[in-house]
Structure formats: structure tokens, C-alpha cells
């Protein structure tokens, strides 16, 4: 299945978006969103269109991650300047709902060592579950820094009752080439999940937070 997304159209759109963003300077970095309009798809009958995908380049730079670590991971976290908490610190929260909620609000995502992740329900209760921030496991066989970057590069997509949805694919401070790669990968991946592939896609737009939508398909 060849991609129907014109590289030319995509490059132009990204150029316009980044150009517009530079012209009118905002006091925050605008997120770039891929907007997908579907057709010939029935949300009540067809299989759910929902999941997470890892992008080649981190789309949201200021994502705060916290390591819930064993001794080894705590040491590594300290070295790379990553916020962390050990089992003792988690015990201090005393399964208090308010405190756990506060912790959940402080970070975008959590990582946890194997020994710690198993204790989370007992130490914290379901607070992190409810916040949608249950930690991702990181083993000692993988690089902690790589895992942090992997976590930051994950984006969620979910089609609800209507036939359009948005996925964060980048931000205006990224290189145009990186935005290009992120969009290409996410489009190809999402289309591969659709039963009729490109026949299910009505239109694709790229849009920065404050900018005008740029049609790319």
C-alpha cells in the first residue's frame, strides 16, 4: 500500500505553519496537530480506532517524567537530572488520595522499576490509574535515558463518536524535517489500521495551536 500523502504538500504545509508561527510570536511553543477526517467508517459497528504510537521525534519537549525507582534506578535518575522517588518516599504518601492526586498532577508520565511497579497498588492505591498515569516499566537491561525519551515520544489517538480526531505530532520549535517524519510515520501507521486504508480517509489537516489548518490530503 503506497502512501497517498504528497511529500510536496506536506513540506509546504509545515513550512507555512512554522513560518506563520515565527511571524506572530506567542509566549508559548505552539503544538502541531494532525487532524484526521474519516469516511466510510461507522463508530458503532467498526472496530475501535484507538491506541498509542511512538513518534521518531519527541513532539512535546516540556514533558515532565518521574522515576519511581529502586536503588539502582534512583542513582541513574540523579545522574541524568531526572526527578525520582524511591519506595520510602512513596510509603510516606500513606495511600492518601489527595497526595497521590497531587503527585499525579505534578508529572506527565511515570516510569518505575520492576520491584517498585508491583508495589504501586499497595503503596498508592489506584490514584495513578485514575489519572491515566500508571507508570511504564523500565528494566535494568535498558537505558533509562532512552526509556524517558521513548515515553516522551508516545502520543495517543482515539476516535470517539464523531469521524474526526487530532493527534499531536510536533511543535513549532522542531526542525521542519522532524515534523515531516513524525507526520509521515503517524499517517502511514494510522491508515494501516483502517479497514479500507486510504479509502477511509476523507481529509488530513495540519494545524498549529493558534494557526490556520493547512490541508495536506
Amino acid at each position, binding site marked *: 500500500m503506497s502512501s497517498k500523502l504528497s511529500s510536496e504538500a506536506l513540506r509546504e504545509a509545515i513550512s507555512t505553519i512554522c513560518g506563520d508561527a515565527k511571524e506572530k510570536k506567542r509566549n508559548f511553543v505552539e503544538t502541531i496537530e494532525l487532524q484526521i477526517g474519516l469516511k466510510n467508517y461507522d463508530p*458503532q459497528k467498526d*472496530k*475501535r480506532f484507538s*491506541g498509542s504510537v511512538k513518534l521518531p521525534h519527541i513532539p512535546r519537549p516540556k514533558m515532565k517524567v518521574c522515576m519511581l525507582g529502586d536503588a539502582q534506578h534512583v542513582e541513574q535518575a540523579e545522574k541524568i537530572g531526572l526527578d525520582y522517588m524511591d519506595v520510602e518516599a512513596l510509603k510516606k504518601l500513606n495511600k492518601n488520595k489527595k497526595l497521590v492526586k497531587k503527585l499525579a498532577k505534578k508529572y506527565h508520565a511515570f516510569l518505575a522499576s520492576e520491584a517498585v511497579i*508491583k508495589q504501586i*497498588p499497595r503503596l498508592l492505591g489506584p490514584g495513578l490509574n485514575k489519572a491515566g498515569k*500508571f507508570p511504564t516499566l523500565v528494566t535494568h537491561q535498558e537505558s533509562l535515558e532512552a526509556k524517558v525519551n521513548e515515553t516522551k515520544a508516545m502520543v495517543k489517538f482515539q476516535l470517539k463518536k464523531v469521524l474526526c480526531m487530532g493527534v499531536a505530532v510536533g511543535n513549532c520549535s522542531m526542525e521542519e524535517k522532524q515534523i515531516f517524519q513524525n507526520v509521515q510515520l503517524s499517517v502511514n501507521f494510522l491508515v494501516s489500521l483502517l*479497514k479500507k486504508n486510504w479509502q477511509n480517509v476523507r481529509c488530513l489537516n495540519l494545524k498549529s495551536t493558534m494557526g490556520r489548518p493547512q490541508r495536506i490530503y
Partner: protein
Amino acid sequence: MEIEEGTEMEVEECRTENSIKRFGLKNSIQTNFGDDYVFQIVPKNDWSLMAVSLSTNAVKLYSPVTGQYYGECKGHSTTINQIYFSGPSTPHVLHSCSSDGTIRAWDTRSFQEVSSISAGSSQEIFSFSFGGSADNLLAGGCNSQILFWDWRNKKQIACLEESHFDDVTQVHFAPHHQNKLVSASVDGLICIVDTDGDIDDDSLESVMNVGTSIGKVGFFGETYQKLWCLTHIETLSIWSWRDGQNEASFENARSLASDGWTSDHVDYFIDCHYSGEGENLWVIGGTSAGTVGYFPVNYKGEAKIGSPEAVLGGGHTDVVRSILPMSSMQSRPTQSHGIFGWTGGEDGRLCCWRSDDSSEINRSWISSAMVIKSPNTRKKNRHHPY
């Protein structure tokens, strides 16, 4: 009629060779004459009936042996998400849950609704399961909540609101551990809840983070201590749910399965199949054109998905949504009547597959008759088509 061997024997036989077992189409039934889909096919305990949920919001009942249509259970006002036949104590009762917020019970002899439990009209129920140490619990997976009722008096006894933050697509009481409930959600988490005593936030025992929206989970293994998990992005993972450990992850499951399939490409997964013995698992994948393949999953050591061992082609013309193998029948293989199983899909068809070897059939036909012709008659027709 020849005595057929058990179907799981046939699948295992060809594993050492590179031959693929192609199951021939025995019959095809059109369940509706609109654009409606077949969602799920479930058997009654004694296999005298099979219930088929459709996107018409109704459940139709057929004979799994002859394909004869018996009747329809109508009542749900929107999508039916799961159906399940009752245990041996009330064998005629079929249960269904729906996005209309109810779990209903139907008498399959009269096709009438006999009971209904409501989660409230603003809740959708995606999955349900009967269990509990005292066998009195009915659990329902809703829009982030897990509800518990005592089905004997229909009273709601608990509501877990914190374990998930998105639709709970699966709830299953664990085999051999009736007090443990496994729940899975669009939020990417699998939770284990201990339903003994008071069911509250402290009942959450363990959480497995799959990382992406979960569609289906199922138990397998000698003591059903393992869990397979299929996600909405068509990835597969294997877990040891007792200790919350991930045993294998297949991120590019579709590619892995397709690599060993020279004639086709897996577009999605339908289900996983466990033979009931040992620890062998198969993942069942399909193509958009409606061909289905059984792929062996190797999750010990290097995570691999093998070449398809069985292929069901020439039956469907669209995405296949469910498969019911006759091998899941507890009785002796000779009673499978030469039928490998049934599949249902988005073409609105129910296809019946023969378990004898038949690799020549690659064309399907739709039978307008609701009854399957005897095999002998069909063979005659094959040689004299006009």
C-alpha cells in the same frame, strides 16, 4: 460419515511440515440482507445452539451443526458488546450486555427477555462476567467504572471508579481463581481485583501496563495462569497474571505473522486460540478480504510468530470479527460432525468450515437454504456444476 480426528490434533500434525491446512467452506449463511455485521458467536453448553450477536442490536440463534435458524432476541436499543450463555444450572439462558447500559438475560426457547440489570442510561457496558468465591457476582465493564451486582437479587454491591480512566473493554473472573477479576481498558491497563470481602479501592491487587488501548484478553496455560492480550493497534502481548509479569511482546505482530504467509498479509487479529492442553497458543489473524489464518505463537525465549498452520479462505468477503472452533467443545471429537468451526464477519455472513482436508475449494457460494446439504450431495454437485 468418516470419523474425524479432533481438530487440535490436525493443527499440530502439520506444524513440522511447511504445509498449510486449508479448511474448506461447508456452508455460508447470510444473517441479514442489509449492511449489518456479525459481531460474536457463542455456543450453548450442550452445543445444541449457537448465539450470534449482530449490529442490528439483536441476537440470532442457529444450530451449530445444521445451521438452521431458530429465532431472534430483540430488545437492546443500541450496540450489543458481548454475549454469553449461562452455566449448566440455567442452560437455556443467554446473557448480553450493551451500550444501552443494560445486561439482559434471554430465554432462548421463547426468545423473550427474562431479566435486565441496568448500569444507568449514561453508562455503556462493554463486557460482563459471572464469578466470585460465592458464585454470586456479576461484574460489568463500563465507561471507566467496573460495576458489581449480586445477580441473585440484582442489587449493585460495588462500583470501582478508580482502577481505569477510560472504557473497560474486558472483565473476566479468572478460571480456578473465582475471586480474582481481570479487567482491561482503552487506557492500556490490565487490573487484577480481589473480590473477596468488601470491594473497594483496596481490592486492587496488581496492574499491568500494556501501554496502549486493549481490545481483548484471554486466559491460557495448564492452570490458566497466563493471559494473552490483543490491542486496538493489533499488537499482542503475553502476561503471567499471577505475578504481573510480561512474558513476551509482539509490537509488529501483523508483520511477524505475515512474514510466514507467502500468499497473503495479516491486516488485523480476531482472537487467540488455546487448545486446552499444554501451553501452546495460536493467534488468529485475518485479511480485509476475509481470509483467516491460525498462527502459532512462540513466546518462550525468542518471541516469534510462526507460519500459518491453518487457513480459512473463500468464505468471507470482508473483515472477520469472530471465530468459534468446534474444538472448544468438551465432548468427544466425533461429535464435531466434521465441522472445524464457524466464523462471522462484517459481510453479515456466518461461515461453517469443514474439518476434513479440502484444499481445492477456493470459491465460496452463498446458500439461500438455511440448512446445510449433506456432504455426499455436495460432492456430487462439485463434479456436475451445471
